[in-house]
């Protein structure tokens, strides 16, 4: 039995179903990230785990015990909110010990627990300050401290980093990851930031339109997206998706697509799996880092193929240069090393790593290979 079980859970407001049948099982110590655009149902699912919203149908269980009717305070969970939700009238120490006090822990033990967590998060000097006197990063730490001190079964994070500036966000992200490694706690974390999802999680649930689109490790989600939504949502810049046609030449399947100059690009698939789809129209998905120059291509790959196409735009970004060309009447972006000499308007042999290519059905948008 899993540690946290979400079984066939749905949520409706009146006749509007905001979360469709969802099944997720989380083992102890896992870091699950729910990621998706706003309105996808991820916060609703988190609030249902917390007990702040009722489950319309299905069951949520922690350590095998059904939680649907259990009050939030009795679920042994702790939550970190987007706005931190620190009690403005209490100082940091009181904020952290409030939950313990409500659960009837005697004062000496409370003080010991608070001191311990404050030490861990390096907020000991702030203990007698009010939240109003703290910076954004400090508030964030206190909010995490308040959750940690409870020593709960499951931590719930609701977009905890979205109120921080860019640099602090990266620092806190690292810190949360370190904390997870150190304490081995079970975490469910909601974010709309796919980079946060990739860096923090042991598993990701990509959500859209009230459905879990794909549940998997960051590697699976990135390399084998279940459908075109996941492919487009995860990764920055996002995966190139362009129409192509499957053809079999000399027994090997390849993808054919139009180029801007009227010619045709041909990219053989790695492996023979796509041979079954001979003649089928597909949407080909290739990550920008799999489209580069011959010298920059992955040396371990056995399926580097070149396509000559005209360079339309180059976007130097410091560490990389993004090069835009047209494959199948669609703009595709390649990620090149910064020092590669690429001229706009010239023809250039793009080296494509077909081991990393995926194909989708244009109708259902599901991955077929």
């Amino acid at each position, binding site marked *: 039995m899993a540690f946290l079980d979400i079984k066939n859970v749905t949520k409706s407001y009146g006749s509007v179903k905001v979360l469709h049948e969802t099944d997720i099982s989380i083992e102890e110590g896992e870091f699950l990230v729910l990621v998706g655009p706003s309105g996808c149902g991820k916060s609703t699912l988190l609030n249902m785990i917390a007990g702040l919203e009722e489950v319309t149908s299905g069951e949520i269980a922690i350590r095998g015990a059904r939680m649907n009717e259990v009050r939030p305070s009795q679920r042994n969970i702790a939550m970190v909110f987007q706005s931190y*939700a620190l009690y403005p*009238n209490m100082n940091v120490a009181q904020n952290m010990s*409030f939950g313990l006090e409500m659960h009837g822990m005697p004062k000496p033990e409370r003080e010991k627990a608070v001191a311990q967590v404050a030490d861990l998060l390096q907020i000991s000097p702030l203990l007698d300050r009010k939240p109003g006197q703290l910076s954004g990063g400090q508030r964030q730490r206190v909010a995490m401290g308040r959750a940690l001190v409870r020593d709960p079964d499951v931590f719930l994070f609701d977009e905890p980093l979205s109120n921080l500036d860019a640099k602090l966000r990266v620092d806190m992200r690292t810190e949360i990851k370190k904390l997870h490694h150190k304490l081995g706690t079970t975490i469910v974390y909601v974010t709309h930031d796919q980079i946060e999802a990739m860096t923090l999680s042991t598993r990701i649930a990509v959500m859209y339109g009230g459905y879990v689109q794909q549940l998997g490790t960051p590697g699976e989600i990135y390399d084998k997206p279940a459908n075109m939504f996941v492919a487009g949502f995860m990764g920055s810049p996002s995966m190139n998706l362009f129409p192509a046609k499957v053809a079999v030449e000399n027994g090997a399947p390849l993808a054919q697509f139009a180029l801007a100059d009227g010619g045709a690009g041909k990219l053989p698939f790695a492996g023979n799996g796509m041979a079954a789809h001979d003649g089928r129209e597909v949407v080909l998905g290739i990550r920008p880092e799999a489209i580069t120059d011959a010298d920059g291509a992955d040396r371990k790959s056995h399926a580097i193929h070149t396509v000559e196409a005209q360079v339309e735009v180059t976007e130097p970004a410091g560490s990389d240069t993004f090069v835009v060309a047209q494959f199948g009447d669609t703009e595709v972006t390649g990620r090149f090393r910064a020092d590669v000499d690429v001229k706009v308007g010239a023809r250039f042999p793009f080296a494509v790593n077909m081991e990393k290519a995926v194909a989708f059905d244009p109708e259902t948008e599901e991955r077929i290979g």
Partner: protein
Amino acid sequence: MAGGAATQVIRTGHGTRFLIYTFLAIFCLYYLLPLYVMLTNSLKPLSEIQAGGMMALPSDWTWAPWASAWSTAQIGVQPTGLSPYFLNSILMVVPAVALSTVLGALNGYVLTKWRFRFDTLVFGLLLFGCFIPFQMVLIPMARILGLMGLAGTVPGLVFVHLVYGIGFSTLYFRNYYAQFPTELVRAAMIDGAGFFRIFWRIMLPSSGPIAVVCIIWQFTNIWNDFLFGASFADFDSQPMTVALNNLVSSSTGVKEYNVHFAGAIMAALPTLLVYVVAGRYFVRGLMAGSVKG
């Protein structure tokens, strides 16, 4: 607020400045004149007033009119002075203000953080209650007080003012709590605090500014109320305002203007005091949430 020069929107020359301040000074004097007349005349013997020196400073300073107004003047039929009625007013105002403020806060808390079906309708009806003229409820209220056995008592007056006060205090607190982040309530729920615990430990301690506004508003209104006091109180439960009227409008004997002035000042002092003590929070509370800062 920023430095003086920066806040000055319109630049004015010395001449204009002089004119403006002269004008303001004149208005100031004009408004202070009644207080001056009341104070000076309450401190002189009756003979000086009858001699026609209304505007003059007392030539013979005396506290006698104050003492008389407080403890010996004829109120209605008894020569008790205003002191028992002052006490009545205190006994009426303090519980009425405290209860209506706390209940208003509770209402505001429920209407914003524990929303239910038709909550806006309930709020609308409470608001509607604020705008019902006092005169309209006199007879039904008298009937209800009679049924409750509270007719002619101080607790009866407390009840009447409480009922009238809740509409306004709910309005204040609801609007204040609407700005209050709901995530705080959710965090407290996860921490294990219940409905009342959240109210006492988190909502109320953060309601300072609006509580001051509410207290000043309720105190002034209830203390200054005459109609309910005159309608629902007996001789021994009359508030200060009614007693003052009885003192001033008694039709027997000589009109003791100096005593009347002293009594009128006494009746006005508590509200003045509340404004002086809490006034700076008043504007701050009214403006709370309107500007980020």
